[in-house]
């Protein structure tokens, strides 16, 4: 079968002659228990989340600088959550007022903040930036920075994503060949590995092909369709197309078999796009044993963060969706008894200029604060350093508050992957620049 599963790098000419797995799930081996289950869940905030307003340091010095420089974008104390205190050093912070659920998870030590993370080739200073030395390719470009967050390859284009490479290394721990990476937000390079090809499932939809009823005529037509997918063709894009549908048919059978045993979740999810996505993820996690999965990576997303103007209004629409969906997901994981087995984290193109635009928004910047949630997370703390709130200061690329990251995506991702079960010795094969940062993971996970 012209499936992408497992032979992506095989040349087109040799594809047809390979012994390919048949449509449908291979017999699952003895199921692994959930005690060994681990999942990573990425929530990608498309458009470039202005994390300067997601979490705000509220000590006098920082809050004065924040209020003064951010001007029309500055949140007042009334627009922030009650103060929370970082476990280390007890410094006061507050979340955007529409992130109340996240603030309370922070207080309960179920959620941590990782400060000023971004794409880097090596530790980078303002002087090095201004000399344009060893910088990631195409900073401030949405498409490039989205891909760099997904690939952890800052120097250029990559055919694989970091989650896909991690999945390549860990897929053998799953007892079926259902894809380790599942997206509920469409195709994503993040989950493409050398041997890993993601499965995409729309929330509430099925991969089942409609119109087949098991009659002889129906079976003949289905066989015709499936046979055609296995045949060599002159055009590579036809093969690429066949491969996607082949995967879909194979994955549909596995999903159907597993989801038929699912029971409705008691947790109520918000009726939003992200709520539906995370509900679908929770439902898949529920049937992990039926799918034969002990290691999974999920991809969900929320868009609309490109706030060049009227940012405060936009955040008032988006942040409640983020906060409520994450809270519901957290509750569902508790319901499923896997709250310590699942770690959820954010990614985003970049953060935005600390200095506002004339239209009460902010422009593309670089380093961004991120959220990590789950029972395994050493929550209630801030990891890394917030930038110094001075335009043209030591953390700024120029004079608009485009913060130079002080933690690399490689470190952030490697910390997640180490917890996930990637051997420490393999982390630098997943994150090629990890060694440029001393091969040091962060301490927000054990």
């Amino acid at each position, binding site marked *: 079968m012209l499936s*992408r599963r497992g032979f*992506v790098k095989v040349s*087109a000419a040799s594809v047809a002659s390979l012994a390919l797995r048949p449509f449908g799930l291979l017999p699952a081996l003895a199921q692994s228990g959930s005690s060994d289950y681990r999942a990573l869940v990425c929530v990608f905030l498309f*458009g470039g989340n202005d994390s300067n307003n997601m979490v705000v340091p509220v000590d006098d010095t920082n809050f004065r600088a924040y209020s003064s420089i951010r*001007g*029309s974008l500055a949140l007042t104390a009334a627009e922030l959550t009650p103060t929370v205190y970082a476990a280390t050093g007890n410094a006061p912070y507050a979340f955007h007022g529409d992130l109340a659920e996240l603030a309370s998870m922070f207080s309960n030590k179920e959620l941590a903040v990782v400060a000023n993370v971004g794409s880097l080739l090596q530790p980078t200073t303002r002087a090095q930036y201004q000399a344009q030395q060893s910088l990631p*390719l*195409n900073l*401030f*470009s*949405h498409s*490039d920075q989205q891909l760099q967050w997904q690939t952890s390859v800052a120097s250029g284009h990559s*055919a694989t994503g970091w989650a896909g490479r991690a999945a390549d290394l860990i897929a053998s721990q799953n007892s079926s060949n259902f894809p380790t990476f599942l997206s509920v937000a*469409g*195709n994503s390079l993040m989950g493409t590995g050398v041997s890993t090809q*993601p499965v*995409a*499932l729309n929330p509430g*939809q099925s*991969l089942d*092909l*409609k*119109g087949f009823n098991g009659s*002889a*005529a129906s079976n*003949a*037509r289905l066989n*015709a369709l499936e046979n*055609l*997918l296995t*045949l060599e*063709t*002159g*055009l*590579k*894009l*036809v*093969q*690429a*197309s066949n*491969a*996607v*549908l082949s*995967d*879909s048919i194979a994955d549909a059978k596995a999903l159907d078999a597993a989801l038929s045993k699912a029971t409705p979740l008691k947790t109520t999810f918000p009726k939003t796009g992200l709520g539906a996505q995370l509900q679908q993820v929770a439902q898949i996690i529920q049937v992990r044993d039926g799918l034969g999965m002990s290691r999974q990576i999920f991809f969900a997303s929320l*868009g*609309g963060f*490109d706030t*060049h*103007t009227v940012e405060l209004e936009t955040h008032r629409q988006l942040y409640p969706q983020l906060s409520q969906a994450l809270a519901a997901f957290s509750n569902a994981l508790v319901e499923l008894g896997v709250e310590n087995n699942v770690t959820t984290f954010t990614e985003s193109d970049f953060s935005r200029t600390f*200095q*506002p*635009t*004339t*239209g009460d*928004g902010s*422009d*593309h910047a670089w380093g961004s604060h991120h959220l990590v949630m789950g029972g395994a997370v050493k929550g209630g703390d801030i990891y890394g350093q917030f930038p110094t709130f001075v*335009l043209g200061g030591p953390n700024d690329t120029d004079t*608009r508050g485009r913060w130079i990251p002080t933690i690399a995506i490689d470190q952030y991702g490697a910390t997640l992957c180490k917890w996930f079960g990637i051997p420490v010795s393999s982390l630098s094969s997943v994150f090629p620049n990890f060694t440029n940062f001393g091969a040091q993971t962060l301490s927000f996970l054990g």
Partner: protein
Amino acid sequence: MRICSFLVVTVWLAAGLSHAQSGLSHRAANRVLEQATWGPTQTPSQILESQGFDAWFSSQITAPISTYPDQPQYNSQGKSNTNLAPIQVLFFQNALNGPDQLRQRVAFALSEIWVISELEVNNASAFPPLLRIFENDAFGNYEQLMKDVTLNAGMGNFLNMVNNDKANVAKGTSPNENYGREIMQLFTLGLAQLNTDGTPVLDGSGNTVPTYTQNDVGAISAAFTGWTYAPMPGFVTTGHNRAYFIPPMVPVETNHDMTAKTILGVKLPGGQTAEEDLASTLHIIFMQPSLPPFICQQLIEHLVTSNPSPAYVSRVATVFENNGSGVRGDLKAVIYAILTDPEARAGDTADTGDATFGHMREPVLLIANLLRGLNGTVSSTSLVANAATNLGQQLFYPPSVFSYFSPAYRTSVGLVGPEFQIYSTQTSANRADTVNSVVYGGQLDAGTKFDISSFTAAATNNTTLINLINSVFFHSDMSSNVQTAITQALAPLTAASDKAKAALYVALTSGEYQIIH
């Protein structure tokens, strides 16, 4: 048309066609229709098959434009009118019935480069004016298109150029950089400097060379300050006019940054008006050497093939640079060059063995092609756009300015395949289900019907049926694999209508049909 006559002789000779002005074979004609229209119908194109490409091309240039009427800005409750359904329906009706097929395809391609999205604009009245620009400028000059779209109020809203004021030192604010950045990154130049053949310019160390710097983004953003919505009828311009999407934006000089600027190495003097800075800036961008290959490569990808050879891009970009009469940016000449290029026409007579050729039918194109090939009808209450949404392409609602898919997206076989970005395990299954609804249900919804009776009539004989499907949907080049598969599906069937449905299902779910080639 002097240039066209010249081109047609040389190009068509190069393609091995000795009688440039004579009619095309059915295979060649339907390949043209697959590349350059919303798809063949069951009625062969008389003009292509009797008079040839040039006569067809001329007729397409002069065909009446299938236009879009303005929509109300407010609904009956006085709120923003967010009902785009009438325009979505009209889009498919135009695709199904409009005589200006080539213009519509080029306009659609341009709309996927110069993107706005209802997700952010939230007003249906923003779309008809912009769609008309794409149609009116489809065979015009690219610099005119740049000006028209830049001043379009929907674009002004979407990329925040409207009411973007010069920096305010007292408040510590800067003009926003959204339009200034994306016009270069997405609409004209791309990120890396290109050679005429679309390959990246490399420096001495083998690295790509950026087309612009962050300073250029800031300078262009300043040059584009000082524009607001046109005043609504009965109002005067006050500085920041309320949203009004139908006329182009108007300048407000007090909000315009009049300082001197340096843009892509060219100095603009201080004291220029908003209009002067805008015209100067657009001209500087228009004259950049990366623009012709950047735009031509994307137009080729939309119409002909996802992986054009550098030589193909170069031939088309050279026409963009100079149409033969000294004009840069003549889109009519560019489209002509794209469609008559030997690489586009190489499959007209026989398979070429070029394994990299072709591009995937994006969902909108798939549905339009099914409507045309299966005698479809789209009523005013049709929900046809929902079918494209279900395949990952919500018409007029792309997720961002980066459109529905990236021109650089790569498939699992390593080739560029932009449309594959929205072709997932989910949407591939949904695509087969769409064919199932069309063929077995006869409709996508109560307002979107299909008529397969001519295929049923042909189904008294398997070969006749396969030949008809081959003629309409495979430019008479269906592989033996697909023919065999159809025959296999027909074996248990006796009723003609069952045979027609099964044959169409297998044919239209095949990979060979998904890839226009």
